[in-house]
């Protein structure tokens, strides 16, 4: 089995990272949480992250800009955007710029779990170990 996938969660609302961390760790991912997108980007440049979960509207840098930088730096990385202000235009822009998926807040943890699992699968990695359990619906 390949190395554990690493996920970065970026949201200036601390609750999001706090709540998502256990959800993702239970799937076997290594998780790092950031409230500041600029710091997150700096960390992205030095570390190896396969999946980024980011808010769109943040102080400092918006999620679309983050998406563009991440994709420029690591085209293979899957970026999942979440937003409390969903609109078809932003969704279209996000998808056009290569976002893997676009989720509206508030969302159920399970919804995000499924999306991250799909992202992991599409990376061609082995599915994380718990996905066998998760297939039982």
């Amino acid at each position, binding site marked *: 089995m390949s190395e*554990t996938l690493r996920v970065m969660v970026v*949201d*200036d*609302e*601390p*609750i*999001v*990272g*706090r*709540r*998502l*961390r*256990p*959800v*993702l*760790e*239970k*799937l*076997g*991912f*290594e*998780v*790092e*949480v*950031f*409230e*500041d997108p600029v*710091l997150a980007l700096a*960390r992205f440049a030095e570390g190896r992250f396969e999946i980024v979960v980011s808010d769109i*509207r943040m102080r400092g840098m918006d999620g679309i800009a983050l998406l563009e930088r991440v994709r420029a730096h690591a085209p293979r990385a899957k970026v999942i955007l979440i937003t*409390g*202000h969903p609109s078809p235009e932003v969704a279209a822009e996000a998808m056009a710029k290569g976002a893997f998926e676009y989720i509206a*807040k*508030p*969302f*159920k*943890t*399970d919804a*995000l*779990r499924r999306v991250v699992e799909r992202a992991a699968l599409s990376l061609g990695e082995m599915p*994380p*170990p*718990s*996905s*066998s*359990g*998760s297939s*039982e*619906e």
Partner: protein
Amino acid sequence: MSWLTRVFRRRASGEDITLLRLRTTRFRQLLGSYASLLALLEDAADKQGGGYILDRQYVIALVEQVAELADAVVFDLNVITSHRNLPFYEVADGLRAQLRAVLAQGSGGGSDTVSEVRTQTAVPLQTVSPSTLAAALARSEVLYRQSGHVACRGVAAGPVCNLSDGRQSGALPPGSVLVATDVEVEQAALAAGRAGAILLDLGSAAGTAARLARELRVPAILGLGDATSRLATGTEVTVDADENVVYRGRVNELLDYYRSGRPGGEDEEEYQLLRSVREAAFPLTVGAGRTEPALSDCRTVRDLVHLAHGLAGDALHELLSTERGGTGTLVRLGGPAWCEVRVVHLDGLHRSDPSGGIMPSEVRSRPLRAFLEGFSNHHGTSSAGHHGADHHAAKHGAGEQRMPGLAPCTLRAAATDEHALAVMTLSRGFDMLDATAGGGRESNTVYCRFAACGDGDPEAARGAVAAGVLMRLGFAVSVMAGQASGWLRGLPWAETEDRVRIVGYLFARLARPGTAGWERSAVEPDVEAFMRSCA
């Protein structure tokens, strides 16, 4: 006002029709805003449950939506009442400010300061590595995943104590996982103090059990459907109420993971904030008594909106019922004429009706036709429809054999093909129906309102009977000053019409309480009797 006298003239002038159309349409919009407020209420309660990740933005947006609805309702009220309720604006502004203040307070001790202190480099503190944890979870058998509603988050493990096999909650061993169909308040209070987690077949995130679980901070998943039949007493389970999952057996890695790294079982700030906002916006705090509350009593947006919708309804009643003479098209119900029914068509397409009136089946408006069917069915089958064995039904049945000398009541309606507004004037107050049926599910709505008191009914128990029936019919019901209002939306066309038919029947049944009047003590049996009689 001169137009009032003209509105119901058989050939009402175009302007009168326009006014009636404007007012009924705006009233419907107002009711729609109220219904949207109720929908927000439900949605917020759902989000509070814990299954969702919500952020401050959600709460902020909720506040703005609620305030916006209040604004819209107050505006519509003022248009309907010719700007006689301008002070409502000040109160609405005040409530908006109050809600924003709740937000500001919530952030006072706030995330901003805390987040600056919080370390940004995220070093996992967990003693259990993600891969170990994930592997352990993958090995575990999942009993439930996303099957119920999370009432209180948290993680716990223990042996099941299944109350459905006759066990008393007092016998619950401490730290066990309480499994039951549903729990009564006392039972839950007793049990929850000792339970490590709660799993229920029934229950919703907004119910009593949920509230208790949250207060006592016991992880709880409700509405699982078949927990009592699947989980025998003694079975070891692990409840992960953070993710709405139940595992068979004890998953030690999961428990260790949370013990080492989980923030306290307390609700996060965002959830506390949501709770404060809900408390400040949604409860109906006025009108518990029998007297009409005043504007100054309004403490929540719901209070204000409820009061406004009542006043708007009064204005519509006034508009529809002022002229008592030959107005609109007469609808012949058959049988003794105990109620005079007249309809004004607002769609401009109606051909002139025969002067002798029309039958209910000839009414074009679908909701009005359904309503009148129910209304007249009661009348036509007053003896057959009631079961003589039933005391209460018999009592009321006797009341309907009305004496010719009694003043007839009047029922006035304004209708289009898919909408009907009807008011029935009583000796004290009035009953009202506003129904739309004929579009898709979302557009099918029924609103009705019942006066608090009937003849010789000082206890305002009449409204309570109506409220009881409406609740059985699936309406969202609010009672203010004894007067019952109910909302229903989102049912398919045919089902909506069925409910309207029953409401019509209820109108007729409640028109006369019988000689004894309504008694508060008899509300429950009266409701039962009514439900049986329409079955």
